[in-house]
């Protein structure tokens, strides 16, 4: 009468070994990290060394973290959302899946970082600023005998036909920043006229925001529109890459940080939050190959970072261009008027 | 381990089996006595294999009950029944050698490997396969494979041993030998065997009892002699041994005998429950004697075909007065008749049987 229900047993047994998750003990903080792997790891290590609190770190892109927070909202698993472009942080604040917290360090932050906190009701705060721009491959440019582009307008030159890449703003936050930037620079109708003209030069709209940087590095395309720090990163390996801050002015992202609503480790989460805003913590980025502008005025700007005095930043309206309705409207218009036109 | 045979070894109580709309077996009741070899005989599609699989537990009945040694096994799985089966295709496990195949059932029932292999070797020896233990089935001839299949089944000493057309993959000569081996084995070991075949010669040769099936029903159930000499209907008369089925008229019944007219001739034969009216007379081919010349017998015929077969001659003879052709087997090979010759035809009445004119159920 006793046949063995081997399979079920095996599941049960193997489950035993695997089922205990991260210790729920005091002294742990679960970080969803949206910046690059090296920085994430170094930050986790830095915090552990500083405080003795164990950091349980998972790296994902900002969009993935936001999707995950929404899925987990009835039983949150994470404590801190560290880094990643600001828009999803603002959306998360809207959805109340993050909770308000005012760090004592708030006063030491640059204006744009404090503004980010203000417009979200303190549910998020600026961690770093990354300026939009474009890069070109000097070798390919020379081969094609084209003069180096300096402005957004230069990208419309017929010489660049099929030689420009930008990501698809429907998929990529980076490309969305570019779309919003152009609209704010030129006004909506002129902006779309520009984007339509640019469309003739676009070789492809990849899905990932940083993909154009890599394509420029490998010489698959001449010009790629993306964040300047991503281009600088690629330029370390591919020496032909030159980074351009457009002459008309450019938009930017505010990499942000939020405490996840319903955090299981509120004390540790806040400790991490406060620590992440210190100059000491922010200096970790530059040492690990991330060259954005840090938000604490006391943090030395890494020498590789774009010289902010030479970058002409526009007055980016995060409230307007972060709202779902405006986003949806512009994206729909872009899809019909630009991408699918032709 | 066997009980005193208060019960028949296998009992079917109004067992039916249908696949959706199609009924394979219709309300069969059947008892199989211990120590006997019972053959299920019938044309393909008659339900005999389904019946066998019902005993094995490979099919479960849609209605009715099945008992083995008085125990209700209707819902027991095949593995829980003390029944073994030899498959038509032998179903030898291709990845196991002969010894592993033979010891398989013993190991499954929890016997120690060494013991199991010893019994397996003994049984292989009994079927004449000593020395073949390490071969794979693919390295054996058909007859050898068949014997492995038998050894594998009998090593378990099952209450019932089932054979599903075991000879159909063998050549004619081997068939007779294996048939005799199976019968000898059954009698030596006192096995209860249920044997499925569509070959009536095979059935007659090996069986204690034959169950003839047709269309999911049992049509007749009896000893080989019963079936041969007293077929229940024209189907059986024709199916078991050849029979010339000649239309006759039953005139009257008196005691056990009926008076019939065959052509212009009257004769008396056992009526076997028939009442006056049209009927058929089953005449075995060897019950017809033919001879050249005029001896004054009632029937005269003309030879239409003749075939010399060494031991005997087969004739087809047209009998004018009856208006029928009869098939004749004649042992007299030294005085062959020529085609076209007019002959005297006599019938051994003892070797005939009356059957109903139509097979009603």
């Amino acid at each position, binding site marked *: 009468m006793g046949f063995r229900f081997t399979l079920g047993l095996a599941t049960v047994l*193997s489950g035993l070994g695997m089922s205990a998750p991260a210790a729920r003990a005091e002294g742990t903080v679960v970080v969803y990290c949206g910046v690059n*792997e090296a920085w994430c790891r170094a930050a986790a290590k830095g915090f552990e060394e500083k405080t003795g609190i164990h*950091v349980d770190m998972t790296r994902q892109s900002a969009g993935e973290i936001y999707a995950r927070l929404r899925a987990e909202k009835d039983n949150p698993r994470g404590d801190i959302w560290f880094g990643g472009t600001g828009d999803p942080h603002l959306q998360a604040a809207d959805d109340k899946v993050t909770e308000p917290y005012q760090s004592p360090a708030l006063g030491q932050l640059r204006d744009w970082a404090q503004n980010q906190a203000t417009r979200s009701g303190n549910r998020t705060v600026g961690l770093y600023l990354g300026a939009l721009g474009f890069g070109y491959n000097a070798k390919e440019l020379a081969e094609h005998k084209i003069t180096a582009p300096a402005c957004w307008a230069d990208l419309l030159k017929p010489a660049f036909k099929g030689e420009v890449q930008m990501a698809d703003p429907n998929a990529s936050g980076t490309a969305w920043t570019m779309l919003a930037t152009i609209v704010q620079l030129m006004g909506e109708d002129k902006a779309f006229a520009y984007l339509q003209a640019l469309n003739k030069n676009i070789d492809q709209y990849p899905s990932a925001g940083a993909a154009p940087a890599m394509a420029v590095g490998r010489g*698959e395309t001449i010009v790629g529109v993306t964040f300047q720090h991503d281009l600088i990163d690629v330029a370390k390996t591919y020496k032909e890459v030159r980074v351009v801050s457009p002459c008309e002015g450019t938009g930017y992202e505010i990499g942000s940080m939020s405490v996840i609503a319903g955090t299981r480790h509120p004390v540790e989460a806040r400790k991490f939050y406060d620590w992440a805003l210190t100059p000491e913590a922010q200096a970790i980025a530059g040492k690990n190959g991330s060259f954005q502008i840090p938000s604490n005025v006391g943090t030395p700007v890494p020498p590789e970072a774009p010289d902010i005095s030479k970058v002409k930043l526009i007055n980016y309206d995060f409230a307007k261009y972060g709202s779902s309705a405006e986003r949806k409207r512009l994206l729909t218009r872009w899809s019909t008027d630009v*991408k699918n036109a032709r | 381990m066997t009980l005193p045979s208060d019960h028949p070894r296998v009992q079917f109580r109004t067992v039916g089996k249908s696949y959706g709309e199609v009924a394979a077996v219709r309300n069969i009741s059947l008892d199989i006595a211990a120590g006997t070899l019972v053959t299920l005989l019938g044309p393909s599609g008659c339900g005999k294999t389904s019946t066998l699989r019902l005993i094995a537990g490979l099919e479960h009945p849609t209605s009715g009950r099945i008992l083995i040694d008085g125990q209700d096994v209707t819902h027991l799985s095949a593995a829980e029944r003390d029944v073994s089966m030899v498959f038509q295709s032998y179903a030898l*496990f291709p990845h196991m050698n002969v010894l592993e195949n033979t010891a398989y059932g013993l190991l499954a029932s929890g016997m120690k490997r060494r013991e199991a292999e010893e019994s397996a070797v003994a049984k292989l020896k009994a079927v004449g396969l000593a020395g073949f233990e390490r071969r794979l089935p693919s390295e054996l001839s058909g007859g050898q494979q068949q014997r492995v299949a038998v050894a594998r089944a009998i090593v378990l000493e099952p209450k019932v041993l089932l054979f599903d057309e075991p000879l159909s993959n063998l050549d004619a000569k081997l068939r007779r030998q294996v048939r005799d081996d199976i019968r000898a084995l059954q009698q030596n070991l006192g096995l209860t065997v249920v044997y499925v075949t569509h070959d009536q010669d095979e059935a007659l040769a090996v069986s204690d009892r034959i169950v003839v099936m047709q269309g999911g029903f049992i049509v007749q159930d009896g000893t080989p002699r019963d079936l041969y000499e007293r077929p229940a209907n024209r189907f059986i008369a024709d199916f078991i041994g050849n029979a010339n089925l000649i239309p006759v008229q039953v005139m009257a019944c008196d005691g056990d005998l009926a008076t019939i007219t065959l052509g212009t001739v009257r004769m008396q034969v056992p009526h076997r429950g028939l009442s006056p009216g049209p009927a058929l007379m089953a005449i075995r081919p060897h019950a017809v004697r033919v001879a050249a010349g005029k001896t004054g017998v009632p029937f005269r015929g003309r030879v239409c075909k003749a075939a010399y077969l060494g031991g005997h001659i087969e004739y087809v003879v047209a009998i004018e007065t009856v208006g029928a052709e009869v098939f004749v087997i004649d042992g007299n090979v030294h005085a062959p008749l020529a085609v076209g010759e007019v002959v005297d035809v006599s019938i051994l009445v003892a070797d005939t049987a009356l059957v109903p004119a139509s097979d009603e159920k």
Partner: protein
Amino acid sequence: MPWVIGFWASLVVVPWYGLEAGLSSQSWPAAAEAAWHGRSWLLVLLPPVLLASLAGGLRWPRLMALAGVSGLLLLALEAWLIAGKSQPPLGWGALVYASCALVVAAYGLAWQGWCRGDVFIVAAIGAVCASTLVFVGYPVSCVLISAFRDNAGHLDFGLFAAKITDRSIWGLDCLTGGRNCGVAWNSLALACIVGVLSTLIGLAFALIAARTHFPAKRLLRLMSILPVITPPFVIGMSLILLFGRSGMVTAWLNHWLDIPRSRWIYGMTGLTLAQLLAFTPIAFLVLLGVLQGVSPSMEEASQTLRSGRWRTFTKVTWPLIRPGLANAFLIGFIESLADFGNPVMIGGNFRVLSTAVYFAVVGAAQDQGGAAVLSIVLLAFSLTAFVLQRAWVGRRSYVTVSGKGDSGQPGALPRSLHVVCLGVVLPWIVLTASIYGIILVGGFVKAIGSDNTPTWEYFLTAFAIGHGDHGFFLAGSAWNSLFTTLKVALIAMPLTAGLGILTAYLLSRQRFAGRGVFEFLTMLSFAIPGTVIGISYILAFNTAPIELTGTGLIMVIAFVFRNMPVGIRAGIANLSQVDKSLDEASLTLGARSAATLRRVILPILRPAVVTAMVYAFVRAITSVSAVIFLVSGEYNLATVYIVGRAEFGEYGLAIVYSAVLIVIIVSALLAIQLLVGERRIGRREIAQKRVPTPELAQA
């Protein structure tokens, strides 16, 4: 009866709540929870146990079945009705209770003659159906339901209708000169092409491997396996490095032959190539098993019937391997539909459903409903392919492994076919070799193609071993994720293969109601993009009653149910060649179906088992999308690490890690091959002489 004792134990011994906390948790058995913690509703679980004790003692079938079924229903009701804060998620007690109830029900039903009275079969069908429902049906429906909701969560069928007819899905602009067609058409066209071509190329490989004297068969097998074991986007990346506009081959052609550099590799052409590289090997594995199973005597029979090699191939071999072809096509088709890594890497402007789904969830639009709508389209395609495949295979018999020993030799290939096969296989090997050359070299130079200075930097970052005060320690940043990955993969591998083969056996050997639906359900998790599966697992298993997120278990489960279908397909294709009388013979010899499965079916199905294990292991190591939402700090996986690096352009690290994974997987494959071994059914290797003596045949 042990299962009734287990039934009792589940209520009075094993802690009822808190699967995630393990056995040492503070939860009490259900009886104690009911008595002292005010959770009196747990008492409804008692009557089924009492009933089962009674019915088990008296061997009363109907009552036994009632006890089991009511136990399952009451457990489900109790768990879902009283969810939320008043009770924690279910734990081991509940799991044991559910298993025992299932087996008790199986006994009850088997005693009534279900499945020919076979308890194991009834229980196995029940267990596989139940687990598939819980781990595939339930989470997937959690996601799909969002297709009918607007962003605020209200039901809105109009919105669904609008979304599903959107031009971005069904547009045909590319036919009229526009840049893009709808993603649905793109995906469909790509999947059809990849499905057909991967099946044909896989067949060419299988024919060469099984039917010719090709000298380097082992190399061939290894080469063909390599793409399976590579994280998907790596293939795309290598293709760009070779054939991109600045790729090495492109530069060479430009320099020597003056062929202008172009970007043909981006888009449908390159994507087809990348997917073929990735998925052909699976077709090869499936077809090889089937081809080896074709009875040589059938081919011999055909040749004696005045059919030449070509006619034998087209009229006998080809029809006989039809189930294999159909299954290989289905796998290729569905893999192509669900593939994410390659389209992202190399798709260019060619958008497909799987990437559209991903970016609908995580992209700037943040439209989960839209993702669900796209998933529905994707599922519709899979379902259609599934139905067509079944129709094509039909009800014919493909039995070629019968219980009769078969001593024939497989026929040689028709000459023209042989040439064609070689023509396909040889260039393919060259292509594969160059791609893996890039991968192996790429991790050890600064920037392959642009700065070819050798460097150990990437390797050391990932896999350095430090030496400190306490001896050696693993200093590299990749060790942690590597070990977790191997652990999860090793646990998932036997479970996936076992469940897959068991399911294949049930599907092809048992008749039970709802079999077709069940079969499709098992294909479901395979057909849906991993991203959707990941999200669906969070939605379904983040809160009570079943809470698994944050554990390693959820990853194992995700892998098992996602990768199981390959085992099922291979198993079904192989089983359709095995004569049913073999199972029946084993049963009548007194081996129960569990033993029959283990001792007769599994050995005969070795090729399918190998396929399933290899696939399960490899996929657990290389898949990204399904688990990217399930990983936690404790259970970080290799591919997630690789993607994290590649996303920021750290290709050196990504490549070096991939290379290490490949080396590990290849050694594992060799180990599996050794462990499981070849199928021994006494077919002679082609071109071998007769083996006359029993002694030799042993070897």
